[in-house]
């Protein structure tokens, strides 16, 4: 497994957000989904920097939507997770589960 097959922490969060949005994922919805679930303010620049990296790793694919008036006549870019991306997120989830399994967070970290 190469270095490029790993998902970093924020990459992991973004891929999970894309999976949750299932076909409705573009900059605005991804940013809101992450803010809603993680309660942290995220910039659109951070989202696109990560999506760009994920696309280079072929974990996500993107397609252009139609321009809309509420966006000043600009298009949306929709993202979806590829099979390779799903495999990467599954692997990361398994690793996290393996590391956290059996840990008692309440007693270990008061």
């Amino acid at each position: 497994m190469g270095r490029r097959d790993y998902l970093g922490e924020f990459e992991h969060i973004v891929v999970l957000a894309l999976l949750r949005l299932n076909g409705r994922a573009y900059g605005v919805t991804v940013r809101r989904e992450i803010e809603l679930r993680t309660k942290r303010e995220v910039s659109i620049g951070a989202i696109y920097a990560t999506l760009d990296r994920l696309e280079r790793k072929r974990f996500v694919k993107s397609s252009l939507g139609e321009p809309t008036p509420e966006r000043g006549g600009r298009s949306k870019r929709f993202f979806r997770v590829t099979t390779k991306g799903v495999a990467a997120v599954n692997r990361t989830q398994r690793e996290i589960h393996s590391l956290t399994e059996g840990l008692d967070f309440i007693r270990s970290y008061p």
Partner: protein
Amino acid sequence: MTSQEPLIHPPRLATWLVSLFAFAESEIILGDLQEEFSEFVFRVGIGSARGWYWRQALSTVARQLLVGFRLSPWSTVAAVVGGWLLDRYAWQLPTLVIFAVLHRYQIYEHHFGSYLFFSTSGIALGHVLASLFVGWMVGLASKRRELLATMILVLVFVGMTGASTLWLAARNAPILWSMFPWYIADWFAILIGGTIVRSHRVVSARQPST
């Protein structure tokens, strides 16, 4: 917001900065920001929405600079080194040209006031124009990373000026403080040169879709 409601424009300067610095996705990012900004205006008011927009724009600019450098560090460094070498040559040109002209037309003998102006402020203005040319060339050489390359070049010059000033101060040597406004003007000229190239490319990239 419905499509019948008028589009409320976000801060123009912040929008301009994003369009200049965003590496490849500026129109998509600006569309996302516009969409959320319009909703924020109705939800929290124009003042808070503008503050949110500025925070998002500045954070996006910082991220895009990092992405730009990470994607092509060597071509960016090559453009900066090339710009530095070009600046060493370009900086001498105004002095050579102005003194050649002053000598050729014997300005010293006939118009001493003009001679004084051209041999001091004229040369300094020439340096500003030379810096503009250097920034323009660095911008041309670093496609889509024009501002990143020119900003790094300016930081190199700021560092060199700071180090040489400290070196002179440590030896109690005289420091030409009167030249500092001209140095700052040179640095701005380099940035403006890069900005001109970037702006031209942004406008050219938009033209086919309009």
